[in-house]
């Protein structure tokens, strides 16, 4: 909304592994995703594993009824192994209940992080409600990733706002015909302290990696894969400051 482009140094660009390098990462993020894909929740989990040190505290996954119907329930055998035994799932009937559950979760010191899934643009999720969530995360330090399924980019106070959709995955090493490890095309369209940009994100080995362009679509395995793209060197496709 600022008419003057803000000069942003490359050091402030978002990149995976930012939190482990000691940088301050905003704790309230929103991920906009299509409801017919599992990408929103998957990316939120990938962010959580990327940002947070491994501990044994449980985490909360709140879904409202519409999100549950459109995109299904968490499935324990498919969750990341480090997280699957610690999940506490809340099936809320309405968006109001889901917001209540999110706020209660953020106030709980025994939770590692909270993931919310809301479908559409419910009236209850106004700017005020969003601001309440931001304040609760900042006060108690529990990070929140709120997945918005099939939602417009409405007003919100999330510090990082992502738009994500699926991206063709890297072919696995032994069966080129099979789908590989998940990859996502993620656009950071609003952020405080980071310039917006677009990346292809994927889970590579232990952590989250970002790439420009996409995975090599042919060839066996990972020869030449990730050459020169350690997480710290990944660059956004377009590092444009939105005016």
């Amino acid at each position: 909304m600022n008419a003057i482009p803000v000069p942003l140094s490359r050091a402030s660009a978002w990149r995976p592994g930012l939190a482990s390098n000691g940088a301050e990462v905003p704790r309230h993020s929103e991920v906009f995703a299509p409801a017919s894909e599992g990408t929103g929740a998957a990316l939120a989990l990938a962010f959580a594993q990327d940002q947070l040190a491994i501990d044994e505290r449980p985490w909360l996954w709140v879904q409202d009824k519409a999100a549950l119907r459109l995109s299904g329930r968490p499935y324990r055998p498919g969750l990341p192994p480090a997280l699957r035994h610690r999940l506490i799932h809340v099936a809320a009937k309405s968006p109001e209940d889901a917001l209540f559950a999110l706020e209660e979760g953020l106030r709980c010191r025994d939770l590692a992080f909270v993931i919310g899934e809301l479908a559409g643009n419910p009236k209850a999720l106004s700017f005020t409600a969003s601001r309440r969530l931001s304040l609760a995360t900042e006060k108690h330090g529990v990070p929140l990733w709120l997945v918005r399924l099939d939602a417009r980019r409405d007003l919100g106070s999330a510090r990082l706002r992502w738009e994500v959709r699926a991206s063709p995955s890297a072919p696995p090493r032994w069966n080129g015909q099979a789908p590989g490890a998940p990859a996502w095309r993620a656009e950071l369209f609003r952020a405080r302290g980071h310039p917006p940009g677009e990346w292809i994100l994927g889970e590579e080995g232990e952590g989250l990696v970002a790439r420009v362009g996409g995975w090599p679509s042919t060839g066996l395995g990972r020869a030449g894969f990730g050459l020169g793209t350690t997480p710290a060197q990944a660059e956004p496709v377009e590092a444009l400051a939105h005016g």
Partner: protein
Amino acid sequence: MSRRILAIWLVRLAIDRWRQNHQAREGQGADTTPLALIAETAHGPRIAAANAAWLEAGARPGMMLADARALCPMLATAPSDPAGDLAFLESVALWAQRWGPWSAMDPPDGLIVDITGAAHLFGGEARLLADARARLQARGLAARLAIAPTAGAAWALAHYGPDAAIFHPDDSLDELPVAALRLDPDILLLLRRLGLKQIGDLTGIGRDALARRFRTARAPAANPLVRLDQLLGRVPEPLLPVVAHHMPMVQRRLMEPIRHRALLDQVVGDLAADMARVLEGLGMGARRLELGMWKVDGEVLVRRLEMAAASRDAAHVAGLFSRKLDDLDAGFGIELVRLRSPWTEPLTLSQADLEKAAELHGTSLAACIDRLSVRLGADAVRRPVPHASHLPERAQRWQAPLAPEASSQGELAFHVRPLKLLDRAEPIAVLYASPDGLPRRFRWRGEVYEIARAEGPERIAPEWWRERGTTRLRDYYRIEDGEGRRYWIYRAGLAGDGRGGMPEWFLQGLCG
């Protein structure tokens, strides 16, 4: 020193209890005419118990009411009450602890009291039996009593021995019938057909023969050898003692009936503080609380609360109850409020003020789950746990978030599973299929997907031990379309498997 066990057989428990409820003494008033307590069975009403007048008339318990009516047309009947009898028996079992430190129920109509080392307080075992008989008679209960070193022997003597028998270690039980061994009716029938009528007949046969004959009978009531050993004290027979349970309770009688919410919240807060004080004295914390509110017009409103972990924090409890009082109809006013805690657990003196701490340091997990499940319902807050099944939708179950996870076999991760599973697999319309049967293009939720890559099939056969024989097998494929969207789809059945028409396709899971 050997144990001494007192067995009490309340011979006519149901009838005695009915008579007490109707203030009739034995042989007087309502008891002079034939009376039967009847139980409804699958074949019509049957007589469960009958009074002396009716037994003299030639009836016996267990006969059909229609047959009994034919014998004695003026028979009066009343419904039997087995649950009430059991509750009464439990209270008598507690009362019977006057003769010994612990007692156990022996349903439907018996009691076992351990009087080891206690008989001298009554002046010997004979005097103890006389005291027990007098006290039971004063309560209007007909009883047969016996004292023996084991529960089995005491039971046998009470039911089949001489009245008020006292068994000494050198006495013999060989004269008692085999029915004194507490066996099932079909085993008794078998023994009678074998010509074994007395316990002495069994001891004459030899253990090997008995063990071979009843080698498949595991339950003690089906195996005469086990019962014989229990009778003689060769194997232990644990009994479940009845323990009096004290339920913490606080209440407030109100001078003026209250009709407004703010006052009620005040009263509930006071009660919660009282309850916290009571529980603190006991070193316990409440898991379940019941708030009863007596209204002026005679109705009682009850609100129940269950907590994920034991707590006695007054502000926390009052806050949880205040959410449950929203739909309360006070009517003309509430005059008595009572708070009880039916379920308590030990809780050491450590917990501080939850509400104030919550503002500063955040809530604990148990408090967070309490708040969530009070507003959203206990079914809304759950945790997935693995379950031993091949079928994907059965491979996980949901349980309470803080309940311990049952141990299970580690799953073998041969195949990748999707991140999310739809509650019901949704059918997809195959528009174009490749020769090997996998669709190349399909329609789901009004959108067309073009499959670029696929892995499969992973064949999962139906669980034949649980499902009907016509259930079809499933071939699962993990697919990715041209845009990178990843799904988990399956084909139900094969062409020509004889279990329905052409196989159908379903989309069940969304991968990350």
